[in-house]
């Protein structure tokens, strides 16, 4: 703490989430009705300032606690919001540690670029000011989430993220598809959040009781609350909960919440639809904010997860399955944003299974996961923004209506290619290092199935990414729109260039020195050079894509026909949505909801109606007493008083 006492950025860390919030209020209430243009500028500037502050904070923090040293969690600012008991309080505050700094930097940085990009992208749209208002709110929610020092604040902002994503996905609220997509996203994540809430309450109850019995653990201040992360991640709590048999259920419940936000199988169905929002919003949701919230949550609670073991393993396999599953679907989709959405699912799967394979002693996976989060934020944002630029130019999402855009849009082409290479894991781009580390951690912890999936998906990723790259940018133009396409304006290309540069070099950061968990940073390098099969896998994917899609399109069509039914199943995304519909409509609605509705209508409402009916009838009967004659009432009153007097007299004397 002392090292940072003089740091402006640390002392005013609350400004980082607060700036977008104030901007949200000011823009939404005062500027938006006056000037759309100013709204965009103010919103962008506020987030850019927050980004600047968070980078400053990162700089100060890592100067005070240099690479390799221990990175303590510090509370920069906090106030007591609710206090129930001595050990049951909810604070609102700003927690500064390496994890929150990482996410603050990523969120504010990507968000400010998205804001900047949006100024160009959204020009001329209806609701321009409203858009920036929502964007600010979204950024604020996400920042509030990552700086939360306790799980209840996390939960509050978690829901706020859900609300603001609902608003943004449904931004084109006149479009029925956008409306249903926003509802879908909200309901699915909300459904998952329910489990999260139960998990939170479970651990809070146990933690509170433990603290009432034994007092605060020695290393923590006396006024620590059962909700605080510092308390939840201490080993004593985990052991005790484990002994009670509650740790694994609680952690799995929390993981379900994380899976909802991070769109892990089977709660992934909202994410591909979420592209109904404006493309920069997709970039923000997919790259830096909403979907990584789940990863962040698991990372934040890594110690209890690790203590449970089982929960972590569940996370690992769910992640690995999502990773493969989404990658396979991505190979068949025609919508450029949909492909990118499935690639996001796949990459999130990587991050989650990397966390899953890690343990309290073997922590490489933790570092690798966050490293991938870090690099993925840049190239996925880049991919989406590039795709946005393309869509902006040709006004279609279907890749088969594009082609040959490389000449029309050189900057977009090059930046998109860099991102594609990065996500495919080609040296020296960022994705290579992080993905390599993930695969290595899976291998190093002897999870060979997951390791194999990781290797396979690396190839598939390269395949589908190059599929869309080749179809979109190379070859001949396949539609009229392409001929009219031209390069995007400056506000859109500048973010592309910045992100491209970062995608290229971000991998060289010695990430493990900064973000790690536990005592050792656990670089399980050496031994077998994992990067060779990983790279080979990626390159072979690129080669297959090149073979199939470069040149004429005959081969791809032939392949499609030959795969037949399998292709159709994959193209229909394994009919997951249909299964959901079937389950909800045919089973849940018919056998659970309908009886409940009947019960509600007939028994509950009927009871209320009966009360009302009885009251009305009773009123009708008693209203006969209401003659409207004041003197009748007075007679009752006088005789009543006399009766009371007589009664008092009889009973008192």
């Amino acid at each position: 703490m002392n090292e940072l006492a003089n740091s402006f950025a640390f002392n005013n860390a609350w400004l980082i989430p607060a700036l977008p919030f104030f901007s949200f209020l000011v823009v939404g209430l005062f500027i938006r009705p006056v000037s759309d243009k100013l709204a965009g500028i103010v919103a962008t500037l506020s987030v850019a300032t927050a980004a600047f502050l968070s980078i400053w904070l990162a700089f100060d923090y890592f100067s005070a606690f240099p690479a390799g040293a221990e990175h303590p969690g510090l509370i920069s600012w906090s106030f007591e919001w609710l206090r129930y008991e001595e050990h049951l309080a909810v604070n609102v505050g700003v927690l500064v540690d390496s994890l929150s700094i990482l996410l603050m930097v990523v969120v504010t940085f990507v968000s400010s670029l998205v804001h900047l990009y949006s100024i160009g992208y959204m020009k001329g749209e209806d609701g321009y000011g409203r858009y920036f208002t929502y964007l600010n709110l979204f950024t604020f929610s996400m920042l509030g989430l990552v700086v939360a020092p306790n799980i209840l604040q996390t939960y509050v902002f978690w829901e706020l993220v859900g609300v603001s994503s609902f608003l943004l996905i449904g931004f084109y609220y006149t479009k029925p598809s956008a409306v249903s997509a926003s509802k879908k996203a909200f309901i699915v994540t909300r459904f998952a959040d329910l489990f999260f809430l139960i998990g939170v309450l479970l651990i809070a109850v146990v933690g509170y009781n433990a603290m009432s019995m034994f007092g605060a653990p020695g290393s923590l201040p006396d006024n620590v609350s059962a909700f605080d992360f510092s308390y939840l991640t201490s080993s004593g709590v985990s052991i005790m909960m484990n002994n009670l048999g509650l740790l694994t259920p609680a952690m799995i419940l929390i993981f379900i919440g994380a899976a909802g936000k991070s769109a892990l199988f089977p709660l992934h169905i909202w994410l591909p639809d979420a592209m109904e929002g404006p493309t920069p919003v997709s970039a923000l949701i997919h790259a830096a904010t909403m979907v990584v919230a789940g990863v962040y949550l698991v990372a934040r609670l890594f110690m209890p997860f690790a203590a449970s073991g089982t929960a972590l393993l569940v996370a690992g396999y769910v992640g690995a399955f999502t990773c493969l599953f989404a990658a396979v679907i991505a190979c068949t989709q025609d919508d450029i944003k949909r492909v990118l959405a499935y690639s996001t699912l796949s990459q999130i799967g990587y991050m989650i299974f990397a966390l899953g394979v890690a343990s309290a002693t073997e922590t490489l996976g933790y570092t690798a996961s966050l490293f991938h989060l870090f690099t993925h934020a840049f190239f996925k944002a880049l991919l989406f923004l590039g795709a946005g630029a393309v869509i902006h130019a040709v006004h279609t999402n279907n890749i088969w209506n594009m082609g040959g855009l490389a000449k029309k849009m050189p900057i977009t082409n090059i930046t998109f290619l860099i991102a594609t290479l990065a996500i495919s894991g080609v040296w020296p781009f960022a994705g290579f290092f992080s993905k390599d580390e993930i695969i290595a951690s899976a291998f190093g912890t002897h999870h060979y199935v997951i390791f194999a999936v990781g290797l396979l998906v690396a190839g598939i990723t390269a395949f589908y990414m190059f599929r869309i790259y080749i179809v979109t940018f190379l070859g001949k133009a396949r539609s009229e729109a392409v001929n009219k396409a031209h390069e995007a304006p400056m506000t859109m290309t500048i973010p592309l260039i910045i992100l491209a540069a970062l995608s290229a070099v971000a991998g060289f950061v010695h990430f493990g020195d900064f973000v790690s968990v536990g005592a050792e940073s656990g670089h399980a390098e050496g031994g077998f050079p994992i990067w060779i099969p990983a790279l080979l896998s990626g390159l072979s994917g690129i080669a297959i894509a090149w073979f199939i899609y470069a040149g004429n399109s005959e081969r791809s069509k032939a392949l499609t026909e030959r795969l037949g039914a399998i292709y159709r199943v994959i193209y229909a995304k394994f009919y997951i949505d249909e299964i959901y519909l079937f389950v909800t409509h045919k089973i849940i609605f018919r056998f659970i909801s309908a009886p409940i509705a009947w019960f509600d209508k007939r028994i509950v409402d009927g009871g209320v109606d009966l009360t009302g009916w009885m009251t009305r009838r009773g009123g009708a009967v008693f209203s006969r007493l209401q003659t409207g004659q004041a003197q009748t009432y007075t007679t009752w009153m006088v005789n009543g008083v006399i009766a009371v007097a007589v009664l008092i007299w009889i009973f008192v004397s």
Partner: protein
Amino acid sequence: MDITLNPADLTHTIAFYTLALTSIVAALIVVTAKRIFRAAVALAVVLICGAGFYILLNYDFIAGVQLLVYVGGIVILIVFAVMLTSSLESIEEPPSLGRKALGLFSSLAFLATAVIAFSETKFPLSSISAEQPKDVAKAVGRKLLDYGAGGYVLPFEVISLLLLASVIGAIVVARNPKRKNEGSAT
């Protein structure tokens, strides 16, 4: 039967019974008179007799206030109300027999209850030596403005507020709504 014939006491007694008889008769006229104006006059008589009672009880100041406010103010107000709402020819219909019976029952029940209660209760009488303040008006005035323990300054203020509120309320209620937009005409 032992009738003491202390002359001062006798005049007192005669005055009491005369006034009592007058006031009871007048009160009966108040509640039964078919011509409402006669009831008002009877009410004035009852109230004047009330002032007489107060004088018999040595509260001459209260008697003065009674005459001033009740007879001079309230009765005249009531007479006004009569004049505004009925005419000389309007003779009140007698109440229905049931209502009459009910009223008679209620009032007699009250009378019986109260009289029985009085006869059963031992009231703590003040000692013979206790003297009433010489100048009741002065004592009442001091008590009304006394803000210490046992003072009545708060009720006094409340009463003044009540009067103000009732005056304003009366104006608002009685004002002809059709004429409210006219200028300064009264």
